[in-house]
């Protein structure tokens, strides 16, 4: 593996709400190599988005990164002054959000929004910014890009809007793009297309991707490595093929069993029983215990992270290797 581009260590992001402290991200560590595609999977509410926002320092009050470190190209981002952080956002590390209907500004033209993103980091003329905008839009597959600069978001389909958002994220060829479920809100037919395009774009420009999704199938078709997230922690990680073939954590197993592709036709899907626990006042011990068929008394203790041969998991009773 190359020297890590992004190193996350012991990241903790908590929300200090009226009801109590929500430990949305609670000790997340991982590394990302240049050009790598890393998948981050987990059920809704497991803390994937908060992890993504934390990487860019985009946590709004009452949330706060309470501990840990995020190093991008050797530079520590946690605690970095806002101005310095702003100069990295969009230039070295960018993000694409889930819902393209909500991310673009409805009252500004596409060209204006592109230009604002370009001029956030490069002091170029209006005209030059427009030229570059058109070029980037063309790259993400928007037909007749120059003519569409004056269009407004509502004149675009969901897929086209997400392409614009991707163009904004790509405008400065960043080293990392955090893609937070960028296809979830789109029609199924568009999903695969955007997925494919984004992978190609990342490959061409050498951009590494952190691909967030609740859908293991999507991530496994894309990512070289995956992190499985549960209740604010990474419970299992490793090369995608290995984790899929041979999950060690019961939660990963559960996710795999609930995939339609693995189920026998005509039988109901094997959903994991229960729901994601509230991250507010989580009891000590393994957070998966109430839903876990393998739970025992020792699971009342926090399982330590066990790592070996490029993979790791956090479970007292890891599943046996299938032969």
């Amino acid at each position, binding site marked *: 593996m190359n020297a890590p581009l992004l190193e996350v260590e012991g990241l903790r992001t908590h929300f200090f709400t009226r009801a109590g402290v929500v430990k949305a991200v609670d000790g997340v560590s991982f590394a990302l190599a240049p050009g790598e595609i890393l998948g981050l999977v987990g059920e809704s509410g497991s803390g994937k988005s908060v992890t993504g926002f934390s990487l860019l320092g985009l946590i709004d009050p009452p949330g706060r990164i309470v501990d840990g470190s995020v190093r991008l190209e050797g530079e520590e981002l946690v605690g970095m002054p806002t101005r310095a952080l702003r100069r990295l956002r969009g230039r070295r590390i*960018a993000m694409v959000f889930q819902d393209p209907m909500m991310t673009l*500004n409805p009252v500004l033209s596409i060209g204006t929004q592109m230009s*604002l993103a370009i001029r956030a980091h490069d002091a170029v003329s209006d005209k030059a910014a427009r030229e570059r905008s058109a070029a980037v839009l063309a790259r993400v597959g928007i037909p007749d890009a120059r003519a569409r600069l004056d269009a407004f978001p509502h*004149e675009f389909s969901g897929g086209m809007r997400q392409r614009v958002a991707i163009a904004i994220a790509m405008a400065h060829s960043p080293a990392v793009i955090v893609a937070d479920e960028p296809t979830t809100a789109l029609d199924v037919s568009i999903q695969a297309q955007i997925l494919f395009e984004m992978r190609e774009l990342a490959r061409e420009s050498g951009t590494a991707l952190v691909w967030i999704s609740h859908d293991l199938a999507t991530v496994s078709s894309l990512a070289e490595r995956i992190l499985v997230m549960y209740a604010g922690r990474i419970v299992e990680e490793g090369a995608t093929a290995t984790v899929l073939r041979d999950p060690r954590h019961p939660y990963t197993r559960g996710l795999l069993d609930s995939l339609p592709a693995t189920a026998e036709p005509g039988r109901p899907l094997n959903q994991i029983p229960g729901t994601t626990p509230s991250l507010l006042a989580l009891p000590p011990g393994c957070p998966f215990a109430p839903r876990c068929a393998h739970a025992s008394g020792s699971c009342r203790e926090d399982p330590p992270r066990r790592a070996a041969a490029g993979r790791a998991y956090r479970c007292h009773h890891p599943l046996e290797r299938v032969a």
Partner: protein
Amino acid sequence: MAGYVIQRCLQAVVVMFVMSVIVFVGVYAIGNPMEVLIPLDAPQDVRELIIARFGLDRPLWEQYLVFIGNVAQGDFGRSFVYATPVLDLILSRLPATLELTLAAVFGATFIGVPLGIWAGYRPDAVSSKTIMGLSILGFSVPTFWVGLILILTFAVSLGWLPAGGRGPTVTVFGIEWSFLTPEGLSHLLLPAVNLSLFKLAMMIRLARAGTREVLLTDTIKFARAAGLSEGTIVMRHVLKLIAVPIVTVFGLELGSTLAFAVVTETIFSWPGLGKLIIDSITSLDRPVMVAYLILVALLFVTINLVIDLTYAALDPRISRGAAS
């Protein structure tokens, strides 16, 4: 867009028609001006002669048709009291009210919106809390009371500013304006401040509420993720996103202040429309009341039209949505 404009204009015509009927009937119901105008001891035949001359002996619908016919020719009738054409009377008072209103509404907007954005942007700062505290004060203290306090403080005690009247005016394009001389400006200051305090409070709260809401959206988060500076985010994204409600209130305030700056004009003896309408009501000067109210209705219809067209310019979704 053209279809949208035509549709809105037709609506405006219908509204004006309905308003003119309501005004005519309403003013008719207030009271009979002849009771005030004709001496009580006038003989019966003189009384009937006068009533016939003003056309008040005819049925209401006929009076209405005559009135509408005259209005179509630009004639709103003559004041019973001043015996001059009503339109001249109103137009002669308009500039005074216009400059007072513009000063108050523009002042409130250009000061209130930035303060409100700041208070929404940094809700926990001491300065923001101070701004919000003052805005509550601006809402809850009655205008006449503030007016009196302003006069007592700045005119009577300190003697810095005049207590009332319009001061010297300068004639431009045949219209008299106060704000063009330092002396006139000093006369304008207190009534304008008095009139603007409530609007200032409203603009602050409007801008703050809008800003707080907008700042939580993905749009702003995405702009931050792209590395836009906070200044750019506020000036380019936030301002445009909160503009629609602010333009609405701006327009409606402009209209209602032009029409009903009565309290402030009375306290500061400002010779504007507010004083004219109060006088016309006490003397049951029916033509002045009718013309005034119809012009006010026209003013509001026009302002609403302009606001709607401004929306279409501010938010591209509106015009194209309506056209399709």
